């Protein structure tokens, strides 16, 4: 299996505070990697460093072996890396279908062809397939702002897959989602992984969710990697137990 993403010694300082302190790990094709850790351990900052929202103070990020450190989010996206954000980020004024078309349109044709070509950039069918996959058919023409929180989370995740990405980074996909919806979400993500062969990295607080979804887990504490392994290995790691249960 090929290595998709390689993070090597990434460090991020804000003034005197080191939020991420020399983190290294790899993501292999087809796997679901979880990143867990207590609040403020630097998970989201790490994501932002990988995706170019923030410039890392030190370290390298490689995508399929190519150095992409410091590239901006648009460039990363066009190289096939999608993400979701910790806080919900759909476009409330657009319908569900429009949200999905928007998520895919920049990967179709050129600026000019997008202006003069089809209004939907030829993506209606693809969007409807995605809507079907996430079981949002009855809501396809509803304003995204009018959806329930859990439905918006599903849409948020669906948007990340719209462009057929090589790698998807999900930042707390389960946060604030109720139990029924959570099962749905997990099941759909697993299906996405199995059917489309999509590779994910997931940041999550919800242990059960991570442990049952992911193939491999990175545990972070105070900006550093504490442990890496399968869910079972990590669960048995004394350092992890100390970090989570010691307090």
């Amino acid at each position: 299996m090929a290595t998709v993403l390689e993070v090597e010694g990434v460090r991020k300082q804000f003034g005197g505070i080191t939020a991420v302190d020399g983190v290294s790990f790899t993501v292999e094709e087809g796997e679901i990697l979880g990143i867990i850790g207590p609040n403020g351990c630097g998970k989201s900052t790490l994501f932002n460093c990988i995706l170019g929202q923030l410039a890392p103070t030190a370290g390298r990020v490689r995508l399929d072996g190519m150095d992409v450190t410091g590239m901006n989010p648009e460039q990363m996206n066009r190289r096939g890396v999608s993400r979701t954000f910790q806080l919900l980020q759909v476009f409330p004024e657009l319908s569900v279908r429009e949200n999905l078309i928007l998520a895919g349109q920049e990967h179709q044709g050129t600026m000019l062809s997008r202006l003069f070509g089809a209004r939907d950039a030829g993506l209606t069918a693809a969007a409807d397939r995605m809507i079907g996959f996430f079981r949002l058919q009855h809501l396809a023409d509803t304003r995204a702002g009018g959806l329930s929180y859990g439905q918006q989370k599903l849409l948020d995740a669906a948007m990340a897959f719209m462009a057929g990405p090589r790698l998807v980074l999900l930042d707390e996909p389960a946060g604030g989602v109720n139990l029924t919806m959570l099962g749905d979400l997990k099941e759909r993500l697993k299906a996405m992984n199995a059917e489309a062969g999509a590779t994910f990295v997931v940041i999550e607080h919800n242990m059960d969710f991570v442990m049952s979804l992911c193939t491999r887990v990175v545990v972070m504490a105070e900006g550093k990697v504490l442990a890496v392994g399968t869910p079972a290995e990590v669960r048995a790691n004394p350092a992890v137990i100390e970090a989570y249960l010691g307090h």
Partner: protein
Amino acid sequence: MNTSRFDAVFATLVLGAVILWFAPVGMGRYGTYVLSLWLVTAVAVMGLNLTLGVAGLKSLAQAAFMGIGAYATALLTTKAGIGWFPAFAISGALCFAVGLLLGFPALRVKAHYLAFVTLAFSTLVWLVLRNEQWLTGGVFGLSNIPRPVIFGIKTDNALPFHRFVVVVTLLLALVLWWLVRSPWGRAFLALRENPVRAASLGVNIRAYTLLAFAIGSAYAGFAGALYAPLVEFIDPSPFQLSASFFLLLMVVAGGSGYQLGPFVGALLGVVLPEWLRFTGGLYLIIFAAIVIGLLIACPQGVLGLLERGWAAVRRRPMGSNPPVKETA
């Protein structure tokens, strides 16, 4: 936004144009002139509505761009003897190009600095228009600007010129309607609502921001190209900074982001003060108080207010509840 071929906005635009074509019959030259002035102003507001209402960029130079368009058209049609149509195209293209040149360095930094840069630009344009008398006529302005001749028909009188303005405004509005429903329009909207998320979806923030600003500015140029022959005289005063503020006011008061908002906003900004003249010297105070009252009641402007009212009316008989968000 939906992708069906035609919608309510399209129908309203076409129907409105038909009504306005016949509206001035028996209205007198003054009424006709005010209607034309309303539409010309609406074109400039449409552009600003794209820049601000759709893409969320704050430009304080819309009147300055209108001035560039008006002076370009006036100079081309009087001194260079070029016809109105090429002058119109050149005016828009010029404003588009200047918009790109101005927006490029400004937007490099941060979107809201565009407001500051355009503020400076607006006053600089005014200074040039006033000081370079050899070209612009300076404080004395340019007079005797010809009105266009279309297929041999002269538009020197109020009614034919009004009808000409109606047609041009309709075409410009339809182009914008078409643009907003294209992938570009979707990207502009994404810029306004959430630029960070948009970037993570591969939307080229800088290119779209720049385009939204330049297209909005080009519309100001088109408005200027109509304004010059409408008034048949231009001097720098209607293109001052305060005029740009006034256009901004019209965007917000009409309903920022609504495609018909510019027409309502320009109606408020151009026709309401004329109508309020019966109140005598206090008409501007009354006008400003109405605007403040409107914004306190509904910051989304007149169309926001209408939409809210319409939703309330629709909800009651059907008895369905508004969508409820689960708490995060």
